[in-house]
């Protein structure tokens, strides 16, 4: 790949990246050590290493995802957030990221606790089950919600632990972590008004993105 081509592909990465990934990348300090749990095909890892100079490592369950990452030169381990986070030593990273994966873990609380043990910070993004579209589907149709972003039927969904933004904040309090930043994104990826009260976030945010810190 020539320099020009690489530059073009960098642009493409930024243009193609999901808004929540860009937001997460902006929460990470330059040159930090980052572990991305459930890193998929490595889009965020690449964004972080190429744009923020981050020492980025990943964990991914699917062989395909891992292969894609390794082929891109990313350091990625095949592993399961529920099982393999316990193998990581304390304080190995500055940030541990879990993007759009919390709701698919078997033990979300344990996963979050491990993240804050391994990293000084944790960044979590997740779909908000309190969004008004989901509420209205349940209210008026009386059936489990199926939306554009959450397109699975109830019986084949990998998402076994949905929560609302308020539920998540409750869990963060329970495990004694601190919220350094919290952003709710609407369905177009634009942040919900920052000074809006919690119930507005919980109603109009399609997903929540939180930067957490271990309480000292």
């Amino acid at each position, binding site marked *: 790949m020539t320099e020009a081509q690489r530059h073009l592909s960098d642009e493409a990465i930024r243009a193609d990246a999901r808004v929540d990934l860009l937001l997460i990348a902006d929460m990470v300090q330059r040159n930090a050590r980052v572990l991305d749990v459930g890193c998929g095909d490595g889009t965020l890892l690449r964004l972080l290493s190429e744009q923020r100079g981050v020492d980025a490592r990943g964990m991914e369950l699917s062989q395909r995802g891992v*292969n894609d990452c*390794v*082929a*891109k*030169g990313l350091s*990625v381990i*095949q592993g399961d957030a529920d099982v393999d986070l316990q*193998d990581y*030593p304390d304080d*190995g990273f500055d940030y541990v990221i879990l993007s759009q994966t919390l709701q698919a873990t078997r033990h979300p609380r344990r996963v979050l606790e491990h993240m804050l043990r391994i990293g000084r910070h944790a960044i979590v993004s997740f779909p908000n089950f309190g969004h008004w579209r989901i509420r209205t589907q349940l209210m008026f149709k009386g059936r489990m919600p199926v939306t554009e972003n959450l397109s699975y039927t109830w019986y084949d969904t990998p998402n076994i632990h949905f929560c609302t933004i308020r539920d998540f904040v409750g869990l963060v309090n329970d495990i004694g972590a601190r919220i350094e930043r919290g952003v709710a994104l609407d369905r177009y990826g634009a942040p919900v008004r920052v000074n809006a009260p919690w119930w507005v976030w919980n109603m109009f945010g399609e997903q929540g993105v939180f930067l957490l810190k271990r309480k000292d």
Partner: protein
Amino acid sequence: MPSEEIAKSASAAAHLEAETPRSLVVRFPESDPLMMDAGVPVGPLQIAYQTYGTLNAAKSNAVLICHALTGDQHVANEHPVTGKSGWWETMVGPGKPIDTDRYFIICSNVIGGCMGTTGPASINPSTGLPYGLDLPVVTIKDMVRAQAKLVDYLGIDTLFCVAGGSMGGMQVLQWAALYPDRVFSAIPIAAAARHSSQNIAFHEVGRQAVMADPDWQAGRYYENGLKPSKGLAVARMAAHITYMSDEALHRKFGRKLQDRSAPTFSFDADFQIESYLRHQGSSFVERFDANSYLYVTRAMDYFDLAADYGGSLAQAFKGTKTRFCVVSFTSDWLFPTSDSRAVVHALNAGGASVSFVEIETDKGHDAFLLDVPELLSTTRGFLGAAARARGLA
């Protein structure tokens, strides 16, 4: 020529390879011996090796390949004894993942082997006869130290990559632990940081088969030309089963009969799997020395990398700058994924840069030698990225 004659001439060729190999050779004089873990020096030391590709001016593109138990230095050329193609031609060659157009590839026969590096069939300078069992017991670390002597001799300071499967993977891990500053990247495939009790047990069965053959003669069979071929063939047959998965055996052979429509009610090789194993055994003894089989299996048994670091594998890799790509296979029950995971866990604890892929295949332990597309693409991707980081064009 009758088949027995062919076998005889092939064995003679194999014996010749131990002393005067058809391969590149470097000889270190008795004044520059290899200090062995057993506590005694071995010298003079002969190392037989092959190279492919061209070393660049900065000497920064050298890849060392470490071979497995019964492998040798003939990675990507016709084998001088069997006439078969190199054992890793799926991986190594022009345009292949370990690309001979980009990298300078080195592979040497291990110490204790029988393809030209000093081993039990080599002449012991103090007696003028083959060493037999007078060669000190060899360890994985001895193999690696011998390779380091060769790398020094070639004037290479840092290896761009050290790669290998099975026992080769053990050497890769030993290299990374012993010479962290000389290994830019490492690919241990289907390997482990220590040999399991089950694997030691399998090796012991193989060694006992060799030693139970009366032709073994306490290892002094070179002198009268009788070889423990039956014992070594049985050892190989037993070992070969451990290299394959049950699914692969079933797919390939099932309960199919060999050239017959009904069982013969005898102990002839009725089943295809029997015939296949017999063939594996008899073709192996034509190219491999029985005493080497004892030595090299022993080296694997003794391997326990953590033991040198107070029992902590993480300590073995502490602060390493080497980039690792660890690979295992789902159907490998000889070096199962849990062994690779233990290595990955230790590397993570040591803060190393590590990738880990468990490749889904039913080909068992032997998968590292075979045309497994995910293995090839993983290696290609990892090496390509490492090459960019190393500044290789």
